[in-house]
């Protein structure tokens, strides 16, 4: 399995595959299907200082090759996560990435300080890109100055490396990535969902109670891939990629685009075994591509010096 091991700031991963935040809860449900120690990591559900009830229902709607969701950061709150969920996860041989969220900067700082001290939390994922809450979330992720400041503040208090989760709902994601790098981020995770909408044919009204929701699933993979391709060449930060990944070949695409690891979101709902299956399938794909190690494929898509766009030597 050495061919899949990846070292990133704070994270010594036996393989670069992990479920994405919000799509796997705190692991309990999926532990009924397979041994979670097989995973590289788990990005746990966003945690806020206090319990959050989330948005009214309906919270999801299907779209072509994808789904919209507006869960609204429902979570049991910092105290319960630290006292119950994280200790439960200690039974698995896993570095945990804790996704943290809040309505204001102080919320992020409070959660970062406490949760980064937990035994099995190896890194934080700063959620400045949730499109489904009125305050906080994406408000921090669409202005470079705000994102830089928040990253710096969280870095000050965190005992573990900080990855910033970027929103695709911006004009220039590269600018956002650079701002986070300046703020001291140790890595990036990208992308969060794209804001979208679906209307009821008969009434003409939005299907989701929140009116808009975040689009995920295979439909957004091309967008995510393009963004990883651009950002990976403009910053030195390692990237954990997500956005429509549902197969081992999708993972290879994102590594080729410049990512160092990959997270699987919506696909878990379709196939609860998807992460396990991807991990099992990757070695044979490396054989097929003649690669010794998965990261040998990193950045294959990048343009080399002297190579004109659209032409390959």
């Amino acid at each position, binding site marked *: 399995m050495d061919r899949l091991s990846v070292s990133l700031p704070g994270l010594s991963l036996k393989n670069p595959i992990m479920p994405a935040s919000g799509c796997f809860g705190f692991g309990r449900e999926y532990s009924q299907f397979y041994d979670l120690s097989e995973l590289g990591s788990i990005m746990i559900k966003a945690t806020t200082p206090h319990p959050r009830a989330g948005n009214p229902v309906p919270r999801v709607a299907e779209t072509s090759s994808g789904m919209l*969701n507006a869960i609204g950061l429902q979570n049991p709150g910092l105290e319960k996560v630290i006292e119950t969920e994280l200790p439960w996860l200690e039974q698995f041989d896993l570095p945990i990435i804790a996704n943290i969220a809040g309505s204001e900067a102080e919320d992020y700082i409070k959660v970062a300080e406490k949760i980064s001290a937990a035994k099995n939390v190896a890194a934080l994922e700063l959620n400045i890109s949730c499109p489904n809450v009125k305050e906080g979330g994406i408000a921090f992720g669409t202005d470079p100055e705000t994102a830089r400041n928040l990253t710096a503040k969280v870095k000050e208090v965190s005992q573990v490396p900080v990855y910033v989760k970027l929103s695709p709902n911006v004009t220039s994601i590269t600018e956002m990535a650079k701002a986070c790098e300046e703020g001291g981020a140790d890595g990036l995770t990208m992308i969060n969902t794209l804001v979208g909408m679906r209307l009821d044919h008969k009434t003409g009204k939005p299907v989701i109670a929140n009116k808009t929701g975040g689009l995920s699933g295979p439909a957004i993979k091309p967008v995510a891939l393009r963004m990883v391709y651009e950002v990976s060449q403009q910053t030195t930060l390692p990237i954990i990629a997500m956005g429509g990944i549902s197969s081992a070949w999708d993972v290879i695409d994102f590594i080729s685009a410049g990512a160092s690891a990959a997270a699987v979101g919506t696909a878990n*709902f379709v196939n609860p075994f998807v992460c396990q299956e991807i991990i099992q399938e990757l070695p044979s794909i490396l054989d097929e591509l003649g690669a010794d190690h998965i990261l040998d494929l990193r950045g294959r898509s990048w343009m080399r010096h002297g190579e004109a766009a659209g032409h390959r030597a």
Partner: protein
Amino acid sequence: MIREQMKVLGNKKLAHQIYEMTLSGELVSLIRTPGQFVHIRTSSGNDPLLRRPISISSYNQEENTMTVIYRASGLGTKQMAESPYDTIDVLGPLGSGYQVNEDVKGKSMLLIGGGIGVPPLYELSKQLVEKGASVTHVLGFESARVVFYEKEFSELGQTLIATADGSHGCKGFVTNVIEQQGLIHADAFYACGPVPMLAAVEEQLAHIPGFVSMEQRMGCGVGACLACVCEVKDPDVPYKKVCTDGPVFRKGELIYG
């Protein structure tokens, strides 16, 4: 709970847009209560992307067979109705259903179903009758052309049909039938159907114990994604998950929005 390519033994049309699929596999041995459901993947591609939650209408654990009854109205259920599958990708059994204890013996139970909420009541009724309860069914449908299982339910106990347009049985809603027939004095009720029906039934039968089965748009079906929550009266737990805490809840537990 497992994921299994279950064998499709049959897929027959019961009424307008209503189909009954018979499946066999190991999954059946894991079913605990009537009212549980399965999550079916209808396409091997991306449209629709998600699985379809469908309640189990009957099961036979000696033969490892079960039936699901569904309405082919959306993309996924139409795929189920039209495709000549030999096997189908099923995740389940999911959720917690209706508890049927020994103490139902000799009691008169009222089973109330609306539209595509009728199917899980069939297995429930069979088990109640087996344990010595007497059952009365009040089943509501839009119109005569979507009525199904009237004969099957009649074999288990009195069965009254209501249709919104009066084309079969009584004209009106299940609550009209319950009132006209003096059925409010049952020992307990079990209901499954659209939310307005559940709310009306709970109000009408507030004086007896009851259980309701909820419906909600679902994501994962296993309790992780928090899409299918419903509001509950307990202030300490503002939401419960339909897929794992339910779909069956006690009367009085839910807030109907």
